[in-house]
């Protein structure tokens, strides 16, 4: 019974591939020309990590402007949640994760679209990188200056839970620095860490640079040298059950293009 949606997805994929085979063949990975051909229409469903919200919405405007027949709809959530949804048969055309391990879940579960993998390789294409920063409330009440300060007595810290990508990154950062810090809470996602920092409930939190940028003046970011050792890669790919793989490929091309890179950089992301 649970295979039914997957089989349906596979059938849809096959049909979509047959219909759009010509279009996707002409699409070069780094040329914007391929995207602008105008024969790509329909609704594109993008599953993306919540941290990509602003960037992807900006890119969607660009995408739809170039191709008035296309419409981009998003499902922003935690990467792990998205992976579970896709593996349960959710009709995602594109999956953009905040780390490679969640992409691996999809690779092992639902799998990636064969044609796309043939061009871009297993595990998806890395389109952005992110590094960590310490976020403190405005005015920095605990006087945090570097990573070591998080381990001091009386300093309350919020981390991401290790089950989510930013938590994995946090662990790696602390390991690299040789620090043992016990936070007061392991938050479900980066946003939740930021909320606790913004409200001053904790003295500091470890989040991504992009999150500090997005939070504006609500928090202050403090960078630290150890962050460079843990660069988080954002992979993007077309899942096997994608209803519109040609549109999906076009979207990924846009993300990987110069335009995509500049929007990502503007939001604080690094590019590979």
């Amino acid at each position, binding site marked *: 019974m649970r295979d039914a949606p997957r089989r349906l997805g596979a059938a849809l994929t096959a049909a979509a591939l047959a219909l759009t085979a010509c279009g996707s063949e002409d699409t070069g990975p780094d040329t914007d020309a391929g995207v602008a051909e105008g024969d790509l229409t329909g609704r594109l469903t993008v599953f993306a990590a919540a941290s990509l919200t602003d960037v992807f919405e900006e890119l969607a405007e660009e995408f739809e402007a170039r191709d008035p027949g296309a419409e981009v709809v998003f499902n922003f959530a935690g990467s*792990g949640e998205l992976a579970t949804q896709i593996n349960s048969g959710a009709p995602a055309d594109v999956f953009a994760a905040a780390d490679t391990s969640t992409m691996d879940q999809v690779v092992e579960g639902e799998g990636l679209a064969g044609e796309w993998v043939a061009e871009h390789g297993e595990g998806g294409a890395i389109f952005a990188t992110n590094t960590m920063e310490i976020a403190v409330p405005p005015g920095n009440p605990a006087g945090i200056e570097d990573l070591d300060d998080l381990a001091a007595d009386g300093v309350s810290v*919020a981390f991401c839970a290790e*089950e989510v990508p930013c938590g994995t990154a946090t662990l790696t950062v602390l390991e690299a620095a040789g620090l043992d810090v016990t936070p*007061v809470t*392991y938050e*479900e996602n980066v946003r939740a860490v930021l*909320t606790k920092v913004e*409200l001053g*409930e904790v003295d500091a939190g470890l989040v991504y640079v992009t999150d500090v940028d997005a939070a504006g003046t609500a928090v202050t970011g403090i960078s630290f040298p150890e962050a460079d050792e843990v660069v988080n890669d954002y992979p993007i790919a077309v899942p096997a059950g994608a209803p519109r793989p040609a549109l999906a490929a076009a979207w990924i091309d846009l993300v990987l293009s110069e335009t995509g890179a500049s929007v990502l950089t503007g939001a604080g992301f690094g590019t590979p």
Partner: protein
Amino acid sequence: MNRSGSRSGSATHGVMRVGSGRPPWPLILPALVGVAFLVLPLVGLVVRAPWPDMGRRITEPEVLAALWLSLSTATVSTVLCLVFGVPLAWLLARTEFPGRRFVRALVTVPLVIPPVVGGVALLLVLGRNGLVGRYLDAWFGLTIPFTSLAVVLAQVFVAMPFLVISVEGALRGADRRYEEAAATLGAGRVTVFARVTLPMVLPGVGAGAILCWARALGEFGATITFAGNFPGTTQTMPLAVYMALQSDPEAAIVLSLVLLLVSLAVLATLREKWVNA
């Protein structure tokens, strides 16, 4: 009805229990749909559960810690709801005061607002920089967020309406003449309440407490927002389930089943006790 005609038909009717009768199908059909709708997700969990290593998974210390935290905080929350909710229900049901209708509407607020918003609201009031919390911190060095107390407070916030509404309904339905009878026997208002009113509305209090406990046990949004997520102190079962869902969906299913079975066992035991009492 069948080939043998009306005589056997009426005989069949004669055998059927008088009074209860056969429920009409316009009731049965939606009822069956309702049951299916409630039970099928459960079936989904059971079918997908990794049964072979179930035993090992449910005895992991983290699971046991989360389960214990859930059961103990839900129980403490229920007690607090009783302590504060029953008198509140009494005031709403038995007294007239300006703004009573408004207060009654306020009681249902936690039912309406998303629990996450409730958690934020609790942070804004009881957080370290909150309206009240800042004084607790400054005067007593007491910070509530990220403690088990915060878990309890979040649960009380979302579960209290169930108790208050249930008890208030019971109080409104109770025959007040018994209270008058108690008064003529020399009982003051407190005695009347404790020895006559409360025993009369006990079924309502019990039902309210069970609803309250169940709601507290399943509480997620307000807890993770207000109390955070730390194994052993604030990570209750629903939080553990949610976290597991991020990386290991099978573990999430296991945890959900454990939570479900334990709560069903507790509720069934309570029910048994009360029915037999």
